[in-house]
């Protein structure tokens, strides 16, 4: 299916309008334990596209597009829509504030690992990296939205509401940044330990002796190690062991605030900083989630709108260091051996001995971000395309799911992550992630946007379209959440997975994908040097023939001939102007001119003149 971000986003908005608005007020997902993750995802489904894509903006009521108004008419008119959104975000802030401090509770997203048990109320209130990361995205979207929307406000009551919301949002942003700093961890281990051995065997794709691999690893990681030692001070316990260069390490984000990580020392109000309980070991999933949220902190939009205050900027810099380091680390592992990338050896094995195609996808995700950040060469990129394609096949996203296919577990129940450390407050907890296909789509599109190689670009876009086919099928047919996600059985009719269930995380991931797709479409087409060459040659011939034709034009010539020549001249001028950006169009114009000129020549030949 062709990806049409604008139409598809509007279709989603329309469905959300039906789902989330009763009596024209926003309704957060019902259910016992409020989840700040799910609520944020629900809001972002509207707010993220509205703040990222200028053509879908809602913050200038006078400029809201008509199809946008039509899709959201459930909320009201161009004035009411932004007001309802502001009210909805304000309600979100109130809903997820405890004793005046922002709370980041996972709510129903967590379960007890032992299904016979139930998490304790304290555990339901545990903050998670998903919530911190989404809060950053949500807060930045909100702050930018308010910045523009405020300009149109004259009524005192509305101005006050906007002021209050801005204050609450800024506090939530600071709190989320502080919590993310404290959820970051560098875990150090002996090369001889089980973790060390697993890591070495994962990166060792050529059967080199273990000692050599350890040495290579240590050499590769040396500059990163130095960065951690010298610059990481905020919210991280001393990493003394890092000085021992014989040890290996892993870095990234744990599932929540890491046990023992000190409060962030900042003059900024970041709310109450609770003690952490999470195990000091990075989880690939939460690392990818954190990286996504942090990237928004230094996006062009954040910088141009000036959304961060001074204290926040300081934390953002600290987060950026961790962001870069983590990307470099995992990207180095993924591409450890040029001959055979560890990443190509699907499935990826984590240091705690777990294997899954999802982990491969997550490492690929980090690699993609790293490629984007480094504006990488096409070689690395083209190599990643094949990995994406294979992951699509392995996960049965682009293939039929067999009756007893093990791949079904990737989507239902998803990859189950054990939240070590949570047992301090009750039963050991788990977190299931089942967004494989959406994650795959997003990374394929990001790669597609990066690729300047026509072949690779085309493969990625075709892949994205096939994944989109799959995702679009998974929309719920009827009942609660009609035309939103997620109904797995619609895509895999031969299996018996879970019943349809409105999942804001999938819905949010798909809207995010569509925003990425809109960005890709917004780029200028990839320049084909071959086409430019052809177009230039065609233009030169057309120019020449036109000059010849002009020479023959007598003063009393027919009007229609004059018009044709004049039109040809204008077409060629335009073609010359666009030949570098759109050589294909320039070719078409030149060919049209050539055909017109030949029409004149052929007619003269028929009259027996010179052809």
């Amino acid at each position: 299916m062709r990806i049409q971000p604008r139409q598809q986003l509007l279709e989603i908005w329309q469905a959300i309008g039906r789902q989330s608005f009763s009596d024209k007020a926003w309704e957060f997902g019902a259910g016992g334990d409020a989840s700040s993750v799910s609520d944020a995802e629900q809001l972002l489904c509207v707010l993220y596209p509205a703040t990222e894509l200028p053509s879908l903006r809602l913050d200038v009521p006078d400029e809201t597009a008509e199809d946008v108004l039509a899709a959201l008419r459930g909320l009201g008119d161009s004035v009411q829509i932004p007001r309802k959104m502001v009210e909805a975000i304000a309600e979100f802030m109130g809903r997820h504030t405890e004793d005046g401090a922002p709370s980041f509770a996972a709510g129903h997203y967590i379960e007890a690992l032992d299904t016979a048990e139930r998490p304790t109320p304290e555990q339901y209130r545990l903050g998670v990296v998903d919530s911190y990361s989404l809060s950053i995205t949500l807060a930045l979207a909100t702050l930018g939205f308010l910045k523009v929307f405020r300009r149109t406000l004259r009524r005192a009551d509305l101005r006050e509401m906007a002021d209050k919301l801005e204050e609450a949002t800024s506090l939530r942003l600071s709190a989320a940044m502080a919590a993310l700093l404290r959820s970051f961890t560098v875990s150090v281990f002996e090369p001889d330990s089980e973790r060390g051995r697993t890591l070495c065997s994962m990166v060792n794709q050529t059967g080199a002796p273990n000692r050599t691999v350890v040495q290579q690893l240590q050499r590769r990681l040396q500059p990163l190690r130095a960065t951690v030692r010298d610059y990481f001070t905020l919210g991280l316990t001393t990493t003394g062991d890092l000085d021992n260069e014989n040890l290996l390490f892993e870095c990234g984000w744990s599932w929540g605030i890491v046990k023992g990580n000190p409060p962030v020392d900042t003059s900024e109000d970041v709310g109450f900083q609770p003690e952490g309980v999470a195990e000091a070991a990075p989880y690939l999933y939460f690392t990818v989630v954190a990286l996504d949220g942090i990237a928004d902190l230094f996006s062009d939009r954040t910088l141009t709108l000036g959304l961060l205050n001074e204290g926040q900027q300081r934390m953002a810099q600290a987060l950026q260091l961790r962001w870069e380091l983590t990307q470099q680390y995992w990207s180095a592992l993924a591409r450890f051996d040029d001959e055979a990338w560890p990443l190509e050896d699907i499935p990826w094995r984590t240091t705690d001995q777990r294997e899954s195609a999802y982990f491969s996808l997550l490492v690929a995700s980090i690699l993609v971000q790293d490629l984007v950040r480094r504006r990488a060469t096409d070689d690395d990129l083209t190599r990643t395309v094949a990995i994406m394609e294979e992951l699509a096949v392995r996960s049965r996203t682009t293939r039929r799911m067999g009756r007893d296919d093990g791949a079904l577990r990737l989507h239902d129940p998803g990859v189950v992550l054990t939240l070590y450390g949570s047992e301090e407050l009750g039963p050991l907890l788990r977190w299931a992630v089942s967004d494989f296909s959406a994650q795959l789509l997003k990374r394929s599109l990001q790669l597609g946007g990066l690729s300047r190689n026509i072949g690779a670009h085309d493969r990625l876009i075709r892949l994205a379209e096939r994944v989109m086919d799959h995702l679009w099928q998974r929309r719920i047919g009827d009942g609660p959440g009609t035309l939103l996600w997620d109904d797995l059985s619609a895509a895999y009719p031969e299996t018996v997975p879970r019943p349809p269930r409105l999942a804001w995380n999938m819905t949010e991931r798909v809207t995010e994908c569509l925003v990425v797709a809109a960005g890709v479409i917004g780029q200028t087409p990839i320049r084909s040097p071959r086409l430019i060459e052809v177009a230039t040659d065609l233009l030169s011939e057309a120019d020449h023939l036109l000059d010849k034709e002009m020479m023959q034009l007598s003063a009393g010539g027919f009007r229609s001939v004059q018009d044709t020549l004049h039109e040809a001249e204008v077409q060629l001028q335009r073609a010359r102007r666009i030949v570098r950006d759109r050589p294909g169009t320039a070719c078409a114009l030149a060919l049209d001119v050539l055909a017109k000129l030949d029409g004149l020549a052929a007619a003269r030949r028929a009259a027996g003149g010179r052809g």
Partner: protein
Amino acid sequence: MLVFATSDKGGTGRSVTSANIAYRRALLGDDVCYLDFDFGSPTSAAVFDVPSALRGVDQAGLHSYLRGNVAEPKRVNVWSESDSASLRNRPSGSGQLVLVPGDRGGGEFVTGGDAVRRCTELFLRLEEEFDIILVDLSAGRSYAAEMVLEATSRPELAEVVTRWLVFHRWTRQHIIAASGLVYGDRGIMAAGAARGHDEDTLRDSVRFVRAAVPDPSSPMFTQLRPAQAAWLRACHEDLTRLASQHRLGQTLVLGTVPLDPVLQWQEQLITDDDVLASRVANTETAEAFAALAVALTHDRAWESPL
């Protein structure tokens, strides 16, 4: 309620639209009075098709009244004096529809304190008698506009609800001109503030009416070539942005009147006959006028939206 209809430029359909609004309000059962304050060219009688007052009345028009020559300006009952067949039979349930024309050849004149006093008195008298008094001001910054700003700033009229309709066509020049008329150096806001009007109240009493707006979905445009349609759309988006920047964006628009061939050739009231029986006019046009008539007293449309 006092409603002032104004525009910066001519050809905005100000007279024809406000006459149609008056007509629609009367159909809804209100007693409506239409004052022709376009002193330079009093032509509103033509829209109502009242032959006795074409180009103004011979004597006792608004000019004579404001100069103090007569105690009361002449009134024309549209229902009984119009030549138009569909107007002459006053529809059942409708209210009064009275036209107060100017004098023929009366011309613009410099107003003095006396004229302002008489104008105030006239408004007060009519306010008691009519539900809606629609005052058609001339295009641009006129003495008439200054006079009514002066009159409405007086304590006698403080209790009377006053609203301003600013008409403009959907073009670059018109948008900029209309913005200047309201917010410019010598615009309504500045002139009103100088006469003691509260700025916020005055701003909230101004709404814009977009006239002759091409509606791409209308049957008139089904024959457009794709290139023309693309051009039209791009222009429309540009104008939307421009209007927003000049503070006359959608949120301050009371209504939009589509481009209608009938109004292009002849300024007239669009009756239900024109739409349903002879079908010379577009339904959308009649609906736009009716919607404007309703919006005129719809309080939410006049609240500061944001």
